[in-house]
């Protein structure tokens, strides 16, 4: 068997293992879903009237439309925290040492985690999206092509964040540390255009909020689903995703190839 098909086969085996874990122990993933869904309901039904007045009028449904793209990306951030935790847990397991002494494709352990995490992220996004639709989110003006592009962006964003999350999991000695280390991935959306426009923030924070990875991705998703102006945000979002994915890949692989502790 050549190297590539060996890599693909072993990675598929590792993916099956990770999906089996997720299916058997869904509580971690479901807990992490709780945050974005709760925030969605909180912002729409509790703060909704005030917030929609703040972003320039309109009723509560206008604010639902505003907030959903950000929350979908936040869902990804929240799901990959689970990835950090499960990678850290996994690395503490003796079975990883066994994998390292077997004649398998070395990277397959990590690739299995990454693909599993992207699959879980997409499933979570679909669930949160369903809740959003149930409370009145509509993106009926988007063309089929725009839907595909939006889906592609979500997958790309999930891949980028996952590679970073895997790296964070690998440097964490245990699950608690992994959860703490990955916390910025949940908090970053709060400092983006997810809940309020960047222009409504204090001047000194605006450059950070404007150019951090979440804002361009949110603005692009908004543009694709709701027809707002995308501008430079499309390229910025793709550049951030590719950059984070490559950096996370190099970091995680180097980390995993080191002698274990």
């Amino acid at each position: 068997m050549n190297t590539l098909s060996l890599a693909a086969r072993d990675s598929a085996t590792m993916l099956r293992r990770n999906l089996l874990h997720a299916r058997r122990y869904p509580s971690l993933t479901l807990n992490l879903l709780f945050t974005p869904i709760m925030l969605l309901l909180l912002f729409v039904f509790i703060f909704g009237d005030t917030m929609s007045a703040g972003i320039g009028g309109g009723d509560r449904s206008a604010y639902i439309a505003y907030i959903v793209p950000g929350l979908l990306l936040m869902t990804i951030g929240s799901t990959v925290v689970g990835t950090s935790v499960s990678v850290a847990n996994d690395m503490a397991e003796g079975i990883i040492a066994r994998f390292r002494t077997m004649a398998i494709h070395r990277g397959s352990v990590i690739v299995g985690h990454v693909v599993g995490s992207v699959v879980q992220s997409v499933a979570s996004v679909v669930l949160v999206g369903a809740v959003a639709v149930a409370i009145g989110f509509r993106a009926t003006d988007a063309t089929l092509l725009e839907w595909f592009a939006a889906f592609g962006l979500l997958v790309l964003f999930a891949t980028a964040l996952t590679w970073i999350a895997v790296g964070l999991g690998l440097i964490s000695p245990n699950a608690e540390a992994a959860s703490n280390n990955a916390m910025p991935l949940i908090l970053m959306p709060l400092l983006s255009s997810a809940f309020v426009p960047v222009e409504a923030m204090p001047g000194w924070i605006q450059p950070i909020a404007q150019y951090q990875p979440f804002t361009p991705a949110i603005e692009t998703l908004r543009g694709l689903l709701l027809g707002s102006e995308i501008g430079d945000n499309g390229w910025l979002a793709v550049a951030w995703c590719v950059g984070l994915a490559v950096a996370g890949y190099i970091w995680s692989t180097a980390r995993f190839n080191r002698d274990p502790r």
Partner: protein
Amino acid sequence: MTTPAIAANRLRKSYGDKAVLDGVDLTVAEGTVFSLLGPNGAGKTTTVKILSTLISPGPDSGEIRVAGHDLATDPQAVRAAIGVTGQFSAVDGLITGEENMLLMADLHHLPRREGRRVAADLLERFDLVAAAKKPASTYSGGMKRRLDIAMTLVGDPRIIFLDEPTTGLDPRSRHNMWQIIRGLVADGVTVFLTTQYLEEADQLADRIAVLNDGGIAAEGTAEELKRLIPGGHVRLRFTDPAAYRGAAAALGAAVRDEEALALNVPSDGGQRDLHSILDRLHAASVEADELTVHTPDLDDVFFALTGGGVPQQPQQSEQPTEAVR
């Protein structure tokens, strides 16, 4: 002569400026059981980790060949030939025993049908059929260890590393494990076994190396090692210090163990010898509270080689069950 299963030259490894292994040479012939014996921290696990490609050897190590392949240039070929059961269980606790076995079959690229057959056979052989559908995290220590070895055997390895396979097991599980290891050897597999139990090495190993302080203190068959140190003794223990002193005076040649109020009298353990000791005690009107005959065993070798003489060592009193057998 055939190629040895394992040939390691000047194995070195240090963490920071602490040398864990300081130039260890090992040769293991194919189809034999080789036991690496040593106290905690002697470097047994580090040796297994290096030979099984888990960690890299120190840069100043010599050539290391496992199953005829160079560890440095062809680690994948080494991995294809070996199986490893580490000290801490290498099973996936979140999935069932059967799923663990099928995972191994997939990673060895067995066709699905054959993978199922191999998994079922091994579960049967290691008495895990009843527990096969339960998560491995619910298994007892002995069951986990059996599953661990069953997983190691999926790829039909020619060389198996077992790092303290019986540590923490109850006596029954330990004897089961010994049977398993004997079965492996009968199939022609080479076994590299580390243990801190001398009896285990004595029972199983063709050759034994005593590792101490990062170096091989002695190597040979169990018989050869036992011949390295002087013979046995009779151990007399007292509760009354006066009786102890009286006996010590009557038995001039005894080695004294003041703390334990015990005397070790060099002896071959024969009837004549015992008679003479008892006669001398009787003549001095002292009575020992306990008398044990101690023939030389690996314990003596172990304690002699890993620091100090036999009776004076405090660890002797910490491990009474090991010493009296």
